[in-house]
């Protein structure tokens, strides 16, 4: 992947306000963003294309975030996953990291925090490409 090409990010959260805030913020920071509020939609989307980064909530109706990120990691291990959740516990954090999650953010968080996390993930991906 060339440096000029935009990183692609999939954001999944069942609360519209989170998507409304994250999508424009990430786009302004220079990423290409697809946002989903239903995990089933996001789940079929990741079968169609590979994303560089996935940002997902944990607690959702239907397929929950933990199952979704498991799918993501199975399908494309190179994708970096960032978990955002309003129910942050040590257990969920541990489980997420065990599944190879890049970072874990407890809601509410500042826009700056998620941007920083995404930037770190981007750096990791680029390093992996060059080495």
């Amino acid at each position, binding site marked *: 992947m060339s440096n000029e090409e935009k990183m692609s990010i999939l954001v999944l*959260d069942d*609360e*519209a*306000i*989170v998507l*409304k*805030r*994250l999508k*424009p*913020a990430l*786009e*302004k*920071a*220079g*990423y290409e963003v697809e946002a989903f509020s239903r995990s089933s939609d996001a789940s079929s989307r990741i079968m169609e294309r590979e994303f560089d980064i996935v940002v997902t909530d944990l*607690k959702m109706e239907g397929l929950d975030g933990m199952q979704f990120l498991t799918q993501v990691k199975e399908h494309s291990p190179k994708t970096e996953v960032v978990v*955002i959740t*309003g*129910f942050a516990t040590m257990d969920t954090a541990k489980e997420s990291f065990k599944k190879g999650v890049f970072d874990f953010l407890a*809601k*509410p*968080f*500042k*826009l*700056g925090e*998620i*941007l920083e996390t995404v930037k770190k993930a981007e750096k990791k991906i680029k390093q992996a490409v060059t080495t």
Partner: protein
Amino acid sequence: MVGKFSNWTRKMFRIHGRTRERTTLVSLLRTFQRILELNNRVLEIMADMGDKLGGDYVFDRQYINSSCRQMANLVYELIYNFNTLAPKKYATLDDIFREINHDIEEELAGRLVIPRTDNVMPYDIITQDFADVVGSKNANIAEIKNRLDLAVPEGFAITTRAFKFFLDHNNLQLKVEGILDGWKNEKITSGEASKKIQELITSGSIPPPLKRSIEKALKRLQHITGIHDLFLAVRSSAMGEDSEHTFAGQYSSLLNQPQQNILKCYKDVLASTYSPSAMEYRRQKGFSEHEVAMAVACQCMVDASVSGVLYSLDPLDTAREVMVISASWGLSAPIVSGKVNADRFIVSREFPHDVRGLDIVRKKERFVAKEGGNCESQTVDEEMEMKMCLTDSQIRDLAVAGIMIERYFKCPQDIEWAIDHRDRLYILQARPLNIKARMADMVCDISSVSKKYPVIFSGRGTIVQNGIATGKVFVVKSKGNLDNFPNGAILVARETSPRFAKVARKASGIITDIGTSTGHMATISREFRVPTIVNTGVATEILKQGQEITLDAQENVVYEGRIKELCYYGFMEDAFEETYEYRLLRRVIKKITPLNLLDPYDKNFAPLACRTYHDITRFIHEKAVEELIDLNYHRYFDTKAAGKKLKSEIPLDLIIIDISGGIQATADTSTVSQDEILSVPMRAFLKGLNSPGVWSREPMSVDLGSFMSSLTRTFSSHQVSPRHVGLNLAVISENYANISLRLGYHFNMIDAYIGNKINDNYAYFRFLGGVTDPTRRSRRAKFIYETLAQNDFNVDLRGDLVIGRIKKLSPQLMECKMHLLGQLVAFTRQLDVQMNSDHQIMKFVGEFEQLARMGETMNGSGRETL
């Protein structure tokens, strides 16, 4: 003042021995300390929730739910603890808590809590939160009136609740649904269905309570306007009419209706909900019929000489950066519907809004209000036909208002306006201009656009109100220069000031060096939705007067130059303020944060006046301190056994009782020296009391008059309890001191708490009693009053009783205040005897000031810290 403790407490003290008494007092102080802790937690969460409105955070429903519940638990615990401190005294607090909590839970469950005046709401109390209840037309116009202070026609809204009430009262719900089913199943045409439903509505009767509410609202309008025979515009204000979906023109607006017709007009507008075109439109857009609820706007007619429409951004050519004004003589209705020729003005979006282009047309007709009701077209006098119908200054006023409204709603606006015969501009209606599709091309790659502009600083400070602003820097330095604040400038200031409320409407953005997310500036910025970053540290240093910048209070960046694309990008997003979660958070915060209980001396400072959690918290904090102040400590102790005598050079017979951590552990069992005292407020007070100069050892020359007076004067029971006289006692802990001192003939009482948390800190000082005649006593009281007031105490003077309060200062400053109280107590010991005339009051104030300053210099604390 005694008797504040319940019977059980008293009994316990009598039954059990000394140690038990001591433990009970310890536990009371612990309860008090717990109240302080809870008080702080409540304030912290309140600040935290307020922070989230700023836009810097991403939060969700879960956050709102959990914060509200956490808050409820804390306030509940606060009340519980307070009831231990003051049993049964304020039982109503429980009920009030339950009411507030119920309202919040209703909000969280998605049920809007509408004030009791629910069928009709005057514009003064309408906010965006009620958009679902009053329709967006009413809500927008009310916000423009209440927040932006622009003139709008006086009026009121008849709510969607009234609509449902009307349907229920006439048993129409099922009938209407039945007819609509017939139409959807293609048994009847939309025209037939419409006719049937409209007949049902217009022949229905208005429920009597609704009729009364409308009549009451009309009376109020008569009163406000001073007009007896009102003529009204009765307009539809349906849910969703203005926002994402444009139902423009689908519903009825009836102009210039005499007030006696209002009920009929109301029904006509309701009936227009079911016009064939509106029904078709809803079917196409996928609205379900039960979502339909019509609110109605009733506004006084504006006696318009000229009126029209303003687009704050030219929808046909957004890149041109101009606004478009159409104007014609008379009322604006035919312009809106495109039925008359109108002058067109192309105006710059930048202040002073130069006219870039104009197109003056022949205006042969004008639409005017007819005497007695309704409207008619009239022929325009020939010399007026080709006359430009707006002056330059009218154009500028309009443009300024247009940009102000756009800035507030964060989206280009379609504004209907009128100018009356006295040249006053009225905003009749404002709604978002739908230009999202056109904007998309302009801002296709926002990240590459903003990269072209140099960043002045980023990531500094705290966003307190989200948004994007471009404009010229206006640095506010001295006090005087706010009057010439230019429209649309970005206010840059060292610190926040309540004065900025004056220019917040004109500012497109605000940046300060110092400030907090919970401060006054944050409140103002949110109120006026001005993008604001506080606490940047560097703004006034780096930004130059007149410099063009872009403030991105979403990403926390300040760019050099104007990045219009960033602004337009902001237009395309759904404004954060318009999201459901934002509105929900704001609604619950309204039940939590506003403070109605301001003045503890006001008779309304009572549980029944509490409307929010903040009120309850404030009330309890204030009263808990009062309970402690008035606690009769003598009752709990055999002071000789429990206390230690203070070793002192000055003649002060003071017994000190240490509850916990107030005295060094190694101290002697029966005496204690000043150095061994650890209690923060006590130590500071004693230092003041012993500071050089204030403690006069000279025998006072008491003249015969005052001496005689002192002999005949007895302490009246309500002023000084006989129990208090003759015993000097201090009850202390590490952060607390309650000191009762009788010096000379005065009785002083000091109650103070000084800890690391600023919000906990307070000092209370009470002074009364004394020898000599009432005039001299009151002179002395005035001296104390002046001195305390000059040192920022909140002072209350009643006869010769002086009460001073001060709170919420840093520990260092609180210590300074205790030091000062010490000096003051010493200085006033026998002062009244010397006060022979009124002019001496200020002389002594000055003298004391000097002594106090001297004392401070010796203590190493500078005057400026006081």
